[in-house]
């Protein structure tokens, strides 16, 4: 087993699937010779050729749109959007076409594409390089939206996305790309989609998060443990469709819930989780749930990004509030 960081895990998953499925093609800006600005595709063009690892012109709309055409004709395109701040021009094709080609044609044509993009703040990147757009996609029927929180989950979830017969938006937190390494068996084993992963069992409060924010969330759980507070930590992982069963089950046991995400608060995915808890888990809740999120402001430039991002301190404070409520 190799020690891999998250971006290496993405690279291995892509390589594995390209090796085993000749329909897989990658397309995007700078993904070929340069191996991607984050090196996610390094070595793949040399190995699989420029026909299967396509350095495209600078045209996000057409990257998404041609991927729809490729997918409909039996390829498995994996389109990379260089940073999530540049993903908005893809929305038309994602919403109006990718998500509904199967539906429109009763399955005659399908759209098994994967749209990969780095996301999130915390690496002092330039303007428009730190966005968290997951909620925009998670509202769109017909899509799957996935965000890994570790190298091994990146590897297994990306393989699952690559094998899924429907479109998957796969968002990779840049802050995690090189943050830590993990043993990852490069054995082509996928992890399941559509389910949450419980990262830590606990009995006093359920912490729900995804992507890079699980760093702070897990650190908060550690800090709370030192005070004798037992927090369960859930990695949502597949943001659409949502596995509310796991979350509801956890909250049924803990009676308290804090949802943590980096995207702006209003209309973030945390709202959907909170809403479903309010509909179905309200009798389990011994205290109002809390959301600890990015503020409803434009994600600031580098100097203030850590003023924006939820911190361990904010999460711990929210947990205290739910524990103090009765």
């Amino acid at each position, binding site marked *: 087993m190799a020690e891999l960081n998250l971006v290496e895990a993405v690279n291995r998953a892509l390589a594995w699937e390209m090796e085993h499925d000749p329909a897989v093609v990658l397309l995007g800006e700078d993904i070929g010779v340069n191996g991607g600005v984050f090196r996610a595709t390094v070595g793949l063009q040399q190995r699989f050729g420029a026909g299967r690892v396509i350095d495209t*012109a600078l*045209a996000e709309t057409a990257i998404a749109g*041609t991927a729809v055409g490729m997918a409909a004709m039996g390829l498995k395109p994996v389109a990379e959007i260089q940073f999530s701040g540049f993903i908005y021009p893809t929305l038309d094709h994602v919403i109006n076409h990718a998500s509904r*080609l*199967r539906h429109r044609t*009763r399955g005659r*044509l399908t759209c098994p594409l994967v749209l990969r993009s780095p996301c999130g703040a915390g690496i002092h990147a330039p303007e428009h390089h730190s966005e968290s757009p997951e909620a925009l996609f998670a509202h769109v029927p017909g899509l799957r939206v996935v965000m890994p929180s570790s190298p091994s989950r990146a590897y297994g979830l990306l393989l699952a996305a690559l094998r899924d017969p429907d479109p998957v938006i796969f968002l990779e937190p840049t802050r995690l790309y090189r943050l830590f390494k993990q043993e990852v068996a490069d054995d082509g084993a996928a992890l399941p989609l559509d389910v949450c992963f419980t990262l830590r069992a606990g009995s006093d409060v359920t912490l729900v998060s995804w992507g890079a924010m699980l760093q702070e969330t897990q650190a908060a759980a550690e800090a709370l443990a030192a005070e004798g507070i037992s927090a369960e930590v859930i990695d949502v992982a597949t943001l659409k469709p949502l596995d509310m069963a796991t979350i509801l089950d956890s909250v049924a046991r803990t009676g308290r819930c804090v949802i943590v995400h980096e995207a702006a608060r209003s209309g973030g995915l945390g709202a959907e989780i909170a809403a479903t808890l309010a509909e179905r888990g309200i009798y389990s809740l011994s205290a109002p749930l809390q959301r600890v999120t990015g503020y409803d402001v434009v994600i600031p430039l580098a100097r203030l990004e850590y003023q924006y991002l939820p911190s361990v301190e904010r999460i711990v404070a929210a947990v205290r509030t739910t524990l103090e409520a009765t």
Partner: protein
Amino acid sequence: MAIVARFQVEYTRFLDPQGEATQPLPPFALDPAALVPLYRAMTQARLFDSKAIALQRTGKIGTFASALGQEAIGIGVASAMRAEDVLVPSYRDHAAQLLRGVSMAESLLYWGGDERGSDFAVPRMDFPIAVPIATQVCHAAGCAYAFKLRGEPRVAVCMLGDGGTSKGDFYEALNLAAVWQAPLVVVVNNNQWAISVPRSQQSAAPTLAQKAIAAGIEGCQVDGNDVVAVHHLAQQVLAKARAGGGPSLIEAISYRLGDHTTADDATRYRDPAEVEAQWTFEPIRRLRNYLLRLQAWGPEQEEQLIGECSAAVNAAVEAYLATPPPGAADMFDHLYATLPAALQEQRAMALHFALRLAPHEGGGGGSHG
């Protein structure tokens, strides 16, 4: 100052509006056996078109986009394609679709508001209609890339309108396809109007064909009401694309003789006299005149053809009207390969609250779009 690049745009026409040859004709155009099917297909498309408008007026289908006067484009192009090629049409391309094997009943189902109308029994790999303008050019470029990568001798043929050439998707896709030298043929139906926006306000470019120059590929103009010219040029660019010669753009100049759709009233923005004058150029009479000259056609054949085509239309309408409505679960059952667990309860709820619909109920009466 030095001149570093030069370009030109050519215009092709073989038959003038009276159906007389303006220059030596390509061989197929001397052969009635090659031309009569084109005539038949145009006639069938037009009869279908007028029936569809009638069905909309009586609330049996929703908004419909007529191709009146533009039949030579769809028929000229689709007749140059092979079965294994892929058509990537806009909403105004039923002429091409019918020739490709989409049934009239399927088309009516679609316009009647039923997704099953895009599940074509025959051209299984053709794209459904694209309503979001010009998006289909990207899809077609992607199809063409797939064909090229797999070494398949297939061509993706994309149709759009003059308005569509203003949209980013069109340029981005052409540019990418040109870099890829992918087997793509893009046909612009320049019917002079984008709803109420005349061609002159759509772009300051004197021709739309010249938009190809931006992508470094060839663009040409053709008389889109001359099915001989359209078919001939389509054959040429399809052959070129199939042989690895890369993408081409054809601007087919025609005219929208009808309203934009059944929801539109063109008299609000367009002089009826302009429309009247354009009837002189329409493609069906033009080919008929030529066939008459060739002595390959006469009133008897015409009558028989109209009879056959009308019968086919009527049969399609009957089949359409008799199609039982989709059930409420239909919304869920083709969304994903397998319905995610999270959606099963919603599906049950939709069934629980389902309204009961009569055969064509729900689809008609659309007054907008």
